[in-house]
């Protein structure tokens, strides 16, 4: 259901979304800003 990231067009930011529930958090939570990996 949850995708890896979600876009906010007002600020131009992508947020990371947790895809699984782990000890660090629950599936569906926003886990900070998403940035593309550096090449």
């Amino acid at each position, binding site marked *: 259901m949850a*995708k890896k990231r979600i876009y*906010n*067009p*007002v*600020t131009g930011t992508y947020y990371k*979304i947790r895809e699984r529930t782990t000890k660090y958090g629950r599936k*569906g*939570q926003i886990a900070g*800003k998403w940035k593309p990996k550096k090449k």
Partner: protein
Amino acid sequence: MTDYTNIFLDTHLWIDYAWYNYMEKVKGPKRTAVKLIEKLENSAYFVIFSQFSIIEISNHFADWFLLKKVIKSGFSYREFRVQRKNYSLTQKEKNRIDEIIENIGSKNFVDTVTIKALKSEDLDFIFTLVNNQIEFFDALHIFTASKYDVKYFVTSDTELRGRVQPLINKGIVPKLKLIKPNNFLKIVETSKN
């Protein structure tokens, strides 16, 4: 194992909560929205949070920042809608808005969902709502709630409740309980005791 129930909070509840918790100098008596959202921690409810809610909340705070600039430039509140396009957010203001969204979305009872694609029947559903005098963003929220099997749609908007209920009765909108925040707060408190 707890059985979780999906609920949807109308954007204005998140906005009340954000003003109280994340904006300076606006502390006052706790509003129902704040009490309700605090009670949802460790409850049996999951709040469905969508990109549409993110955009509406962000727009609210963007308008707040832009309104201050428009007024400071000598325009009146009435001129804001026209003047808004001539102003933009600073990076600091965008970061403030991102902080608010991240704080809301990181709560352990919030399930951030994405609508990957809209089918033609989804658009038909949304436009049926709009044709029944439901505002576009509210129609998107009702659509999201129906996609994610939401049981309670919590809103203070009497007009919205009045317009959606007949559509539920006719079977156009799937079964959904539109409920006032005060009444839902009582349900949450009862289920916690």
